[in-house]
């Protein structure tokens, strides 16, 4: 009995330190980790496909003015599924490996993006894609041999 306790104590002494020095030393996530979203304002053309596929409704699209479309990413409720990254035709949304997203203000978890929409050369208004198929493609649907999943 006593000997077994002593043996246990010896094992504990031999184990060494297991605790990570985390907040003092950085710790990178594994490759392929999906963290906070990052939006490239130069690449986005405001098709709204990301808003269409987002399961948590993170992305809100609002046509603020005739030529301005506002996309607001309320990523506090983002589930990091990566669907927006998959459907974005321009690769404007990327899921970075940043996971240290703790904050004390809810306003810190909002990305606001104002997209300038290209107008028609003649009438000066934005125009929808001409065919229904193009409209679906712009809204995030993909058609292919994989049953429309990718």
């Amino acid at each position, binding site marked *: 009995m006593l000997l077994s306790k002593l043996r246990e104590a010896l094992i504990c002494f031999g184990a060494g330190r*297991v*605790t*990570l020095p*985390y*907040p003092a030393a950085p*710790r990178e*996530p594994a490759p392929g980790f999906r963290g*906070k979203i990052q*939006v490239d*304002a*130069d690449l*986005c053309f405001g098709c709204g496909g990301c808003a269409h596929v987002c*399961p*948590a*409704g993170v992305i809100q699209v609002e046509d603020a003015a005739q*030529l*301005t479309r506002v996309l607001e990413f*309320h*990523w*506090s*409720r*983002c*589930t*990091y599924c990566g669907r927006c990254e998959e459907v974005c035709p321009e690769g404007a949304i990327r899921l970075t490996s*940043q*996971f*240290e*997203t*703790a*904050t*004390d203000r*809810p*306003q*810190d*978890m*909002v*990305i*606001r*993006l*104002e*997209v*300038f929409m290209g*107008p028609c050369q003649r009438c000066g208004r934005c125009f929808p894609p001409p065919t229904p198929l193009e409209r679906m493609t712009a809204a995030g649907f993909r058609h292919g041999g994989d049953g429309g999943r990718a």
Partner: protein
Amino acid sequence: MLKRLCARAFPRALWVYHANTGACNGCDIEVIDVLTPYYDAERFGIRLVGSPRHADVILVTGPVTRQVAPALRRLLEAVPAPKLVFAVGSCACGGGAWFDSYSVLGGADRVIPVDYYVPGCPPRPEAILHGVALALGLVEKKVAGEALRQETIEELAMGVSRFGGGRDATP
């Protein structure tokens, strides 16, 4: 003297009461993971307690369901006065994928005032530790709100871009 002692002890040891308000158990498992010797939140004085009357911090996981909301309000009243509320996980921060569901109030901050948000689905144990260290003042905050915009056609026509090619990140 006791008051001074309490004021000195409070930033050192936060006793946590963990409230599951309808979470899927993903965040709860990560919270338990943080308390294991590998991540070891106990070195910061974090301890789980069994009663809100013993706690300094309420740790909320899950989108607050309609059923549990009154209980959560009563739970906050049971915690003695200097108290913090942590919302851990996307559900507690903003409602997650259920933010507009009929049976869910959509986040802990709809019911009780939240002091710290730790988003993630579930957050990594490191992310929860980062939130704890942020509350204790050991690390800096690493996120900020962003406001991005593209140039309008007038700005493009003038050939000058105030916004440096569409990038304007203002905290």
